[in-house]
């Protein structure tokens, strides 16, 4: 039945071929594809800096590049990866493409604002890349004053301007999603029939809208202090550098939840689809996304336990930081329970989901170490912290992103990618990732500080292991680019529902029409209803 499938002659990609039809499009799917291309470029650039860092750290003396260049490497790696890849990755690509069809809408609530968000992202990217070319910035992605305001003589203000602008792209995407999910659900699509992917993006959008402005004002204050000589954070005039850290982390901790929540949503979809079964404890998983988003706002000072905040404040924030661990644990346990008595399969997206659950669990659990006051004094700003957030960002967010990409690629392009190579790349990514970042836990507890280009000799073996793993990980990321592009031309035709999934988006043709559905769907069944899907297939066959 599969072989007579062919690509439908009318779909959103051949609905106008001119550059104008792409650059001035209002179709959320085309905007998602343009975002996919932009953030892939940014991921490649950020990855280059990571390679530079790992080469430098292969030797204790740090003689691959000078100290200044190394400082610029890790700063640009941080800035580009955080603000230009991780924050937009799943919401702007998969979220943009899939939320309207998943809730049965023709498009997002504000299509023009969606396009504006893409242009703003490009403008922000332009300023940051301009700053990178002109000389880069060496303050670390955290821009702590007074170094960033007074001592650094690198192009801090252009980079800060780039991040300030990119922040608005994130705000507009979040705003668009919230209004769409509230006001444009198809008839019958109640809140508890929404796919968990949509719940996760609703929570992410709340954080994007409520958190991003605070880093915008923090950057304005930094820019004003550096460019005009104002004295808000200047210790010589009585200012308090710790205040900058408070304002910075008020956004930047919820920002890590912007990065991970969409990946949690993707994994809930994958686990449910590939065990052919409704997720275990749907409402608990849905509300745990909201809980993570809201608790994410009250824990920020666990980044500052040794930064000079008072003992009392440290205790309060440490206590609250444990509250965020509970919803994450609930999610992991619910995924595990979903697999029980399911009908699982080892397709590539599911491989990424397995990898995600394992690595996200380790990432989350190592967060407990850092939330514990007694340990954070020893571990703060060492490689233990670097390993922790890479387990969440790379092991979690990027594995989730790749899993989602592999799952919805047939829907986005109508083509299947090569099964064999995608499994090889999934395993390479998993293995390469663990070799790269697990030794960093050990070298971190040994006391190797962050952002050092040279380290004591006895820590060399662990660092060389990490650098070796980084090359395997790097190769693992290059493979998907190859077989995805290859599949565009030569991939097997996928048909509307290659995985037999249950979401509304799988009832559209793939690649979908510009207006998604021929006529507005009415939702009657519960989410993840596989029973009637099988019945429909039997009826068809």
């Amino acid at each position, binding site marked *: 039945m599969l072989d007579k499938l062919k690509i439908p002659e009318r779909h959103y990609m051949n609905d106008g071929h001119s550059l104008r039809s792409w650059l001035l499009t209002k179709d959320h799917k085309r905007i998602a594809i343009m975002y996919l291309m932009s953030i892939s470029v940014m991921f490649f650039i950020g990855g280059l800096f990571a390679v530079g860092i790992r080469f430098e750290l292969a030797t204790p003396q740090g003689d691959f590049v000078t100290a200044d260049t190394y400082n610029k490497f890790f700063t640009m790696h941080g800035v580009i990866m955080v603000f230009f890849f991780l924050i937009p990755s799943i919401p702007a690509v998969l979220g943009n493409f899939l939320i309207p069809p998943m809730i049965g809408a023709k498009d997002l609530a504000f299509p023009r604002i969606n396009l504006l968000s893409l242009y703003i992202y490009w403008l922000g990217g332009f300023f940051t890349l301009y700053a990178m070319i002109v000389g880069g910035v060496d303050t670390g992605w955290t821009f702590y004053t007074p*170094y960033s305001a007074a001592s650094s003589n690198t192009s801090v203000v252009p980079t800060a301007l780039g991040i300030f602008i990119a922040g608005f792209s994130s705000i507009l995407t979040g705003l668009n999603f919230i209004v769409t999910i509230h006001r444009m659900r198809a008839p019958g699509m109640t809140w508890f029939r929404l796919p968990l992917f949509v719940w996760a993006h609703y929570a992410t959008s709340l954080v994007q809208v409520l958190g991003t402005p605070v880093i915008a004002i923090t950057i304005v204050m930094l820019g004003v202090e550096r460019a005009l000589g104002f004295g808000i954070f200047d210790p010589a005039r009585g200012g308090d550098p710790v205040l900058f850290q408070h304002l910075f982390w008020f956004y930047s901790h919820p920002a890590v939840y912007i990065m991970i929540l969409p990946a949690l949503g993707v994994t809930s979809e994958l686990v449910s689809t590939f065990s052919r079964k409704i997720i275990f404890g749907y409402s608990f998983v849905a509300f745990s996304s909201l809980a993570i988003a809201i608790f994410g706002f009250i824990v920020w000072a666990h980044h500052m336990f040794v930064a000079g905040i008072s003992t009392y404040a440290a205790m309060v924030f440490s206590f609250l930081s444990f*509250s965020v661990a509970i919803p994450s644990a609930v999610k992991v346990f619910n995924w595990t329970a979903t697999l029980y008595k399911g*009908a699982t399969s080892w397709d590539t997206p599911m491989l990424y989901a397995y990898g995600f*659950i394992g690595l996200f669990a380790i990432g989350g659990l190592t967060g407990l170490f850092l939330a514990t*006051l007694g340990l954070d004094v020893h571990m703060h700003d060492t490689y233990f912290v670097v390993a922790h957030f890479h387990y969440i960002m790379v092991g979690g967010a990027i594995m989730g992103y790749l899993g989602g990409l592999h799952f919805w690629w047939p829907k986005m392009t109508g083509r299947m990618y090569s099964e064999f190579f995608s499994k090889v790349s999934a395993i390479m990514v998993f293995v390469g990732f663990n070799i790269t970042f697990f030794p960093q836990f*050990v070298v971190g507890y040994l006391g190797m500080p962050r952002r050092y280009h040279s380290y004591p000799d006895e820590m060399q073996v662990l660092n060389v292991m990490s650098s070796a793993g980084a090359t395997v990980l790097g190769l693992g990321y290059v493979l998907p680019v190859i077989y995805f592009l290859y599949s565009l031309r030569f991939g097997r035709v996928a048909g509307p529902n290659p995985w037999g999934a249950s979401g509304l988006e799988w009832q559209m043709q793939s690649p979908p029409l510009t207006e998604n559905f021929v006529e507005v769907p009415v939702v009657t069944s519960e989410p993840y209803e596989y029973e009637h899907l099988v019945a429909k*297939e039997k009826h068809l066959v």
Partner: protein
Amino acid sequence: MQIFGIPIFPDQASTFAKDVDALYFFIFAVSAFFALVVAVSILYFGVRYHKTHEGDIGARIEGSLPLELVWSVIPTVIAMVMFGWGASVFYHLRRPPDQAMQIYAVGKQWMWKFQHLEGQREINQLHVPAGRPVKITISSEDVLHSLYFPAFRTKMDAIPGRYTELWFEATTPGTYHMFCTEYCGTNHAGMIGSVTVLEPSAFQAWLQGGSQEGSLAQRGARLFESLACNSCHLDTGRGHGPSLKDIVGKTETLEDGSTVVVDDAYLRESILSSQAKIVRGFKPLMPTFQGLISEENLVALIEHVKSMSPNATTAAPAASPASADPAAGKPEKK
């Protein structure tokens, strides 16, 4: 502790290092347990419930409230235990005992300056007695730094304009690492040193005995390195700058043909305003250190250069010039 010669666990050299490590092992055990439970069960379910043929679907299990409560309440309880234990260790870390020995530390871009009450001043070196609580009051002269002793499991940021403090009681004598863990610029990775724990008697000897922080010349040597003078003034003379070996007392011919005897005044002048008298055959590359070096560092540097020419007749030091900038200047910001 080492495996195949690779150190995988830091040595415990302070009283509360053991408490911190006990807490570390507890959380490590709990995390390993949960990680294993999750990993094993997802893989087991993945294999055990693999679909036998194409059309299979899973059992319709919506969820179960008791199970959800179990894995919400239990992690909460464990989390509270971790919090309580961590908070008590932290409270102990943050309250130095009263009769602790007081040391002052000042972080300055890319060196740590310690001052003992008895007057000793050390740069990137710290000598502490074993078996006695030591309280270090920390501040910074320019940007954020952070004083970190991995072996003592303690760390505290140095904030300009404010005092913060950390304390430890060293137990086993030896030399341990000291790092700066708050990013502070170009040579953040070079702002390291070592803390030497001495037996109380040896510490007393060190206090009275050896010159305060090694002779002035030794301190000059460290500065000669940390200010990267050695990257141009190579002994072989093939660097950007002239070789300084046996230079004191020699007469050098300058760019404009005139000659000058290399003495203290000339050395001081070529450090503070290095473009003034360039030796023939060298380009004016040397940066001026006016405002970058304090008076005592300048004297130490000159002592070091003089120590590189042992057999030179020690020319009488020229009258110290009028207004050398006494305090260590702020790094010049472009």
